[in-house]
C-alpha cells in the first residue's frame, strides 16, 4: 500500500515531551499566590487588589512594548511577567499611591528582566530588584504601614487621616521585644501591618504546599531558609522576657520571610539548580536575613538577603556539582591528589 508521508518530519530523539511548559508552571505559581491575595483583600480592602491588578497589567504592557521596540516576538505568553507583577504589588504597602505599583513594574520588567535578555537571563529577582529600587526612591511610601481593616480609599491617594498607621511586628521585634498587641495567631492569619502580600504566613504556606504538590518547586530552598532563621533566632533570642520558642515563632511568622522563602528565593532564574546549591542558598538567605534583622538599619532583611544571594548563584552552582553516576567519591579524591 502507498502511504501519504508528505507530513513526516525527521528530528533528533526524544520524540515525546511532558505536558508541563513554562506557561503551565507560571500559572501554577499564580494559583499558589491566590490564598495570600485573598487574605490581603480581606485585611487591607479592595485597594490591595487594585494594586495587584495595576502591577500585573503594567508588567504585561511594559514587556510587550519592550519586545516591540527590540523586534522580538512577544514573550508575555509564558505568564512569567504576571507572576512578577503580582510579587511587585505584594511588596508594596497598601497605602502607597497606585502609580507606585506601575512604576515598580516598569523597573522590574524593563531594567531587571528585559535589559538582561528576558526570561532566564536576569541575575536578580525582578520583583525584589523593583522593591529595592522603590525602597531607595520612595522610602516614605514603602514604610507607611496601615492597620488591618482601615477602610482606605479605593483609588485616590491616602491621606494621614485615612491611614491608621501602625507598627509592623518586625519593627517591635527590632527593639528587642515581642509585639504586645499582635499574637502569633494574628501573624499566622495576616491580621497585622505589612506589605500587601506578606502578612499571612498560613496563606503563603498553603501556596507553598500547592507548589510542592505540583512539583513546581522543591523543598530545598524554603526549608533551608526558614529552618536557618528558626534555628538562629532560637539560639540567640534578643529578648529575655519571652520564651525562646515564642521569640523564634515571632521571627519566623512575621515580616516577609514566608513570602520570600516560598515565592522569591525559589525563583527559578535566580536560584541555584543543584540540590546542594539550593540548600547553601537557603541557609545563606537565612543567615543574612537574621543578620540584617538583628544588626541592620532596617527592620526587615528578607529582600536584601535574597538579592545578595542571587548574585552568588553562578558560583554556588559551579561549586556544588552533584557526584556523577559512576564516579566514586574516594576515587575522585584520589584523582584530585
Amino acid at each position, binding site marked *: 500500500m502507498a502511504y501519504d508521508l508528505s507530513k*513526516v518530519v525527521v528530528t533528533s*530523539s526524544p520524540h515525546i*515531551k511532558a505536558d508541563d511548559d513554562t506557561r503551565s508552571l507560571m500559572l501554577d505559581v499564580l494559583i499558589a499566590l491566590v490564598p495570600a491575595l485573598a487574605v490581603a483583600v480581606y485585611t487591607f480592602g479592595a485597594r490591595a487588589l487594585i494594586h495587584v491588578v495595576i502591577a500585573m497589567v503594567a508588567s504585561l504592557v511594559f514587556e510587550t512594548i519592550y519586545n516591540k521596540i527590540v523586534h522580538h516576538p512577544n514573550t508575555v505568553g509564558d505568564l512569567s511577567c504576571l507572576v512578577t507583577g503580582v510579587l511587585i504589588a505584594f511588596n508594596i504597602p497598601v497605602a502607597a499611591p497606585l502609580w507606585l505599583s506601575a512604576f515598580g513594574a516598569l523597573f522590574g520588567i524593563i531594567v531587571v528582566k528585559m535589559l538582561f535578555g528576558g526570561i532566564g537571563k536576569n541575575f536578580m529577582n525582578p520583583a525584589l530588584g523593583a522593591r529595592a529600587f522603590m525602597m531607595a526612591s520612595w522610602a516614605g511610601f514603602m514604610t507607611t504601614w496601615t492597620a488591618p481593616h482601615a477602610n482606605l480609599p479605593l483609588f485616590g491617594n491616602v491621606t494621614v487621616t485615612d491611614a491608621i498607621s501602625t507598627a509592623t511586628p518586625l519593627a517591635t521585634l527590632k527593639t528587642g521585644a515581642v509585639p504586645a498587641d499582635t499574637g502569633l495567631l494574628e501573624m499566622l492569619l495576616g491580621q497585622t501591618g505589612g506589605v500587601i502580600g506578606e502578612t499571612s504566613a498560613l496563606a503563603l504556606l498553603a501556596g507553598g504546599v500547592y507548589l510542592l504538590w505540583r512539583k513546581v518547586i522543591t523543598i530545598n530552598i524554603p526549608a533551608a531558609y526558614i529552618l536557618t532563621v528558626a534555628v538562629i533566632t532560637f539560639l540567640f533570642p534578643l529578648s529575655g522576657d519571652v520564651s525562646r520558642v515564642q521569640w523564634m515563632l515571632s521571627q519566623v511568622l512575621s515580616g516577609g520571610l514566608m513570602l520570600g522563602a516560598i515565592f522569591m528565593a525559589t525563583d527559578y532564574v535566580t*536560584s541555584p539548580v543543584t540540590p546542594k546549591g539550593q540548600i547553601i542558598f537557603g541557609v545563606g538567605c537565612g543567615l543574612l536575613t537574621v543578620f540584617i534583622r538583628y544588626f541592620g538599619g532596617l527592620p526587615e532583611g528578607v529582600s536584601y538577603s535574597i538579592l545578595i544571594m542571587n548574585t552568588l548563584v553562578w558560583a554556588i552552582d559551579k561549586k556544588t556539582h552533584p557526584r556523577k553516576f559512576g*564516579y566514586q567519591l574516594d576515587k575522585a579524591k584520589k584523582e584530585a591528589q
Partner: protein
Amino acid sequence: MAYSFRGGIHPGTHADPGYKSATNTKPIEKLALPDEVILPVSMHIGAPAKPIVSVGDTVDLGQPIAEAGGFVSAPVHATVSGKVKAIEPRLHPNGSKVLSIVIENDGEDRKHESVHPYDFASMSNEERIECIRSAGIVGHGGATFPTHVKIQSGIGKCDTVIINAAECEPYITSDHRLLLERPEETIGGLKMLADIMGVQTAIIAIEENKKDTFAKIEELIADDPRLKLYPLTCKYPQGAEKQLINACTGREVPSGKLPADAGCAVFNVDTAGAVYRRFTTGMPVIRRIVTISGSAVAEPKNLEARIGTPIEKLIDACGGFKEAPNKLLAGGPMMGNAQFSLDAPVVKGTNAFLAFAGNEDKRVKDPQCIRCGKCINACPMHLLPIYMNVYGKQEDLDNAVDCGMMDCIECGSCAYVCPARIPLVAQFRLTKGKIQAKRAAERAKAEAEKKKAEAEAAAKAEAEKPAENK
C-alpha cells in the same frame, strides 16, 4: 519492594502509564512471509558482516549468507528460503544506505541443513559460545552488541547475569508479550547463560507494570536457586544498562567502563530467548517481535516478523494509517530513530515501529531556559544538563565535559521534562562530536610531536657521533 535508581521520568498519563495500553493486551501475531527480505550486513555494533553468497544463489531458511567481519561482529542468515536477488546498498533504519542482501522468497520456508538442535549439556563452553556466535545473536534490546563478545569478555569478571525485562521505553510491549506468552524461552535462555558464564546469581528484572507475567515466571524459576525475579519500579530509563545494574545490585558501572567492570552481564528478554532457541532448535536469528503503535496507526499490534521484512508490510498488517503520520520512528519515542520512509527493513534491534499523527514532541521556536532545574532531577546519570547545554552552545568544551557531557547516555529524560522544550539531547550530540573531534586532533598532534621529537633526537645523535670520534 521494587528496585530502582535515582532520577528518571514517568512518561505517559495517569490512566495509561507508558502509553502501553494500545498493545499490552494484544497477543503476538505472526506476520505473513514477505515477497522479499532485505538483510543489511550491519545489524549489530562492530564490523559489518561479509556476504558469502552471490546474486542468483538459492538459499535456505537459516543458511548463513554473510560471515562475521571481525571479532566484534555477527553473521547474517537467510530469513526466508529463495533466491538472492541483489546485493546492493539499501535503506537501513539508521537512515543511511547499507550494503544489503535481498532475497526473493520462494514461499517454501525450506530449512537449511545446518539447522539442528544441539545437546547443550554435553557441549564445552567454547563450543557453546561458538554456537551463539554463529547464530548471529546480538542484543535485541536495541543496542545490538554481539552476544558472544559480551559473554566472552564477561567470563571470570561477572558474578551476576541480569535479564533486562524493564522495557521502560513508552509504547513498546514486545518483551512484555514474549514474557507472557513464551516465558520458558527467556528463562531457559537465562539458565543457559548462567551456566556458560558460571555465575551463582541470575536475575530477571521486570518492571511492575508487567505484574501479569510474575506468577508464571516464579513457577519456572522455582527449581533453580540461582534464579531470582526482581520487580522494578516503573520508571524511564529503568532498562538502561547502567541504571538496571544499579537498581538490581546497588553497583555503579565506573565512568567509561563496561558492565563487566561492575561484575554484571545484562541480556535482553529476546536475546536470552534467541540463545534458548539456538540450542533447542538450532535456528539462528531469523525473526523478532515488533510493536507497531502510535497515534497514527489504525490498529496497533505486536507482530512476529522475519528480519528483513520491509516496515511497510508491518504497517499494512496493522490496517495502515488512520491519519497521515507526522513522525515515523524505528524504536521507542525516547531513543528511537526518526524515519522518512517505510522502505527500511526490520533489523535485529527493531523492537518497535511507531507512527505519530500529532506534534508529540511539542517543538517550539526559540526556546528559553528558565533554569527550573527539572533536567537535573531527571538525569539518571546525575549530570547537569542545564550547564551542559550552556557550555555546549558556547563551545566551552572543557566545562561541558566537567558537567558530564561524555557520561550522557542520551536517554532523553532531560529533554522530556524540559518545560522550555529545549532540544537538549540534540545539542549534546553535537557537542559530543566536537569533543571527540578535538580529542582526536589532540592525539594526532601529540603523535606528530612525539615523532618529530624522536626524529630530532635521532638527528642530534647522528650529528654528535662524529664529534665524539674526533
